């Protein structure tokens, strides 16, 4: 296990080096420099001085090495545009994205697994058809449009929920207020995930129910409920956990759109703003942190396997 963890962490480190290098190359090769250098009031001399100050006069490989060296020491640098440390900016935005993605993930598993199991056990029934049909709709729905429609319905036509943002500026603030703001974006982000997960759950449930050991258990006289929950479900959980791990990067990526639709102050909006302003340190920081978070959550999912499936030994 320890050996496996070391190898996986090693792979993660290599992946992060490749990802950050690619981003760095793209960023510095892209036309137009950082927006702070484009101030028309600055003389050429001041621009040169500014460049020297920010280390932008160095060759690219050196800039990257300097950045990397700082990151290893725990320093993500300071934002060009805001002047504040990137770590602080991310510290403000990352928890919001994690809250949104976490809520959406929880919602998806709670909705999709029961739906998939029910539709697998009642195959070809009305319920199964509804689940299959609904999951095609969920997969095909464009996230942002769906979000806009929910805003029109539940915030404008029926003023039940706030149309966006994370906190009410005038009203009472607190966990309840944030929760109310979270409802619509979490549903929107969860929908595509629910659809995918329900389809996987259904098909893996169907294949497990066709296995010999299930037939053996049934012929021994195990009741239908016990057969489902004690015998089948344990084996169904293994592919479901795999798929959950695979869906995670897409969920966090999708959060970028959902955040924009609902003005949710998360990593997505930070990434878009930083990219438009050519705010190099922020671009690099966001890229690195969001990738590390997702890759490490995947690692946790893989470690969970060992507990779910005693056959797997790393």
């Amino acid at each position, binding site marked *: 296990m320890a050996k496996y963890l070391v190898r996986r962490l090693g792979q993660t480190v290599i992946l992060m080096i490749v*990802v950050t290098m690619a981003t760095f190359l793209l960023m510095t090769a892209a036309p137009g420099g950082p927006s702070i250098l484009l101030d028309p009031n600055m003389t050429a001399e001041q621009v040169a001085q500014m460049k020297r100050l920010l280390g932008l006069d160095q060759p690219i490989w050196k800039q990257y090495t300097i950045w990397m060296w700082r990151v290893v020491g725990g320093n993500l640098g300071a934002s060009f545009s805001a002047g504040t440390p990137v770590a602080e900016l991310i510290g403000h935005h990352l928890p919001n994205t994690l809250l949104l993605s976490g809520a959406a993930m929880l919602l998806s598993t709670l909705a999709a697994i029961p739906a998939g199991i029910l539709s697998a056990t009642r195959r*070809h029934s009305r319920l199964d058809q509804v689940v299959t049909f609904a999951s095609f709709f969920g997969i*095909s729905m*464009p996230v942002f*449009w769906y979000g806009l429609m929910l805003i*029109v319905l539940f915030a404008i036509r029926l003023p039940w929920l706030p149309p966006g943002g994370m906190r009410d500026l005038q009203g009472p603030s607190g966990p309840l207020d944030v929760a109310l703001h979270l409802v619509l974006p979490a549903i929107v982000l969860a929908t595509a995930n629910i659809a995918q997960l329900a389809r996987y759950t259904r098909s893996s449930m169907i294949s497990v129910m066709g296995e010999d050991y299930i037939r053996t258990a049934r012929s021994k006289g195990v009741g239908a409920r016990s057969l489902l929950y004690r015998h089948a479900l344990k084996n169904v959980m293994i592919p479901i956990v795999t798929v959950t791990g695979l869906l995670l990067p897409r969920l966090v990526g999708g959060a*970028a759109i959902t955040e*924009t639709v609902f003005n949710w102050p998360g990593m997505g909006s930070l990434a878009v703003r930083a*990219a438009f302003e050519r705010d190099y340190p922020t671009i690099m920081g966001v890229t690195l942190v969001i990738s590390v978070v997702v890759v490490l959550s995947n690692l946790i999912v893989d470690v969970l396997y060992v507990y779910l499936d005693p056959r797997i030994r790393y």
Partner: protein
Amino acid sequence: MKDARAAVAPASVTAQAGAPRSLSQLFWRRLRRNRLAFWSLIGLAIIHLVGLFAPQIQPYDPNRIELGKKLVAPSAEHPFGTDENGRDILSRVIAGSRVSLAVGLAAMLFSLVIGTALGGVAGFRSGFLDTFLMRTTDGMLSIPLFFFMLTALALIGSTLPNIVVVIGLASWMSVARVVRAEVLRTTPMDYVLASRAIGCQESRVLWRHVLPQAMPSIIVAATLGVATAIQFESALSFLGLGVQPPAASWGNMLSNARGYLWTSPLLTVYPGVMIFLTVLLYNWLGDGLRDALDPTGTRAA
């Protein structure tokens, strides 16, 4: 849908019944039996024809601004109404279909080329190259790619070729995996061995004998790939990183409409329904093709 699937008989039975001789006949027969996939194909054909003949069909110039007719409600003159600049929405939806479909198809083709090449080579050449390519694929799948797509486009600029390349580069992985699996399955077969024995070059073995076996899977992946690419394009356009105004695309129409949610919520409906419908039909068709192209014909749901 389910009944149609269950009704598909194994190849041997249908062959005895007389009608279909070749695989393609069998394929068409199965596809026609799957009503959902068949109608999806018809629907998509219509949508694509509209996109192809957009300049002839659209009732107005989609970019003509008429400030006297801002946000007009649907009427006989403007069936879908007008937008915030007095442009005819119907014409813009039609013009937008052209852009959205072109980007979707081009991005899918690009990802198909990368995916087939990498997956084919990885499966065929096993060993270090295989491990390296598959680790790369896994790595790409484990990072939140949408963040990279929007960062990349904000940096290099949202021109049509850039959008196609960025979407293509972010979506070849599933094709590569599918192709690799098919190649691994086919390469040890006797007829491949025979083609080697008679002295075929390795590249010919791969292109002429091994990859054609992967064709059904590639077609399915391509169909589903168009759906994903259209979704990506519209999402990027929505963030202002896709097709740039004044040119219409379904995504940037939605992005504009967002500013008028309170006053004219209908503006979001037309482009939104078009994206949704096109993606849904592609997904349904892909699912139907998966069944129709399954050589065993007995795939469990």
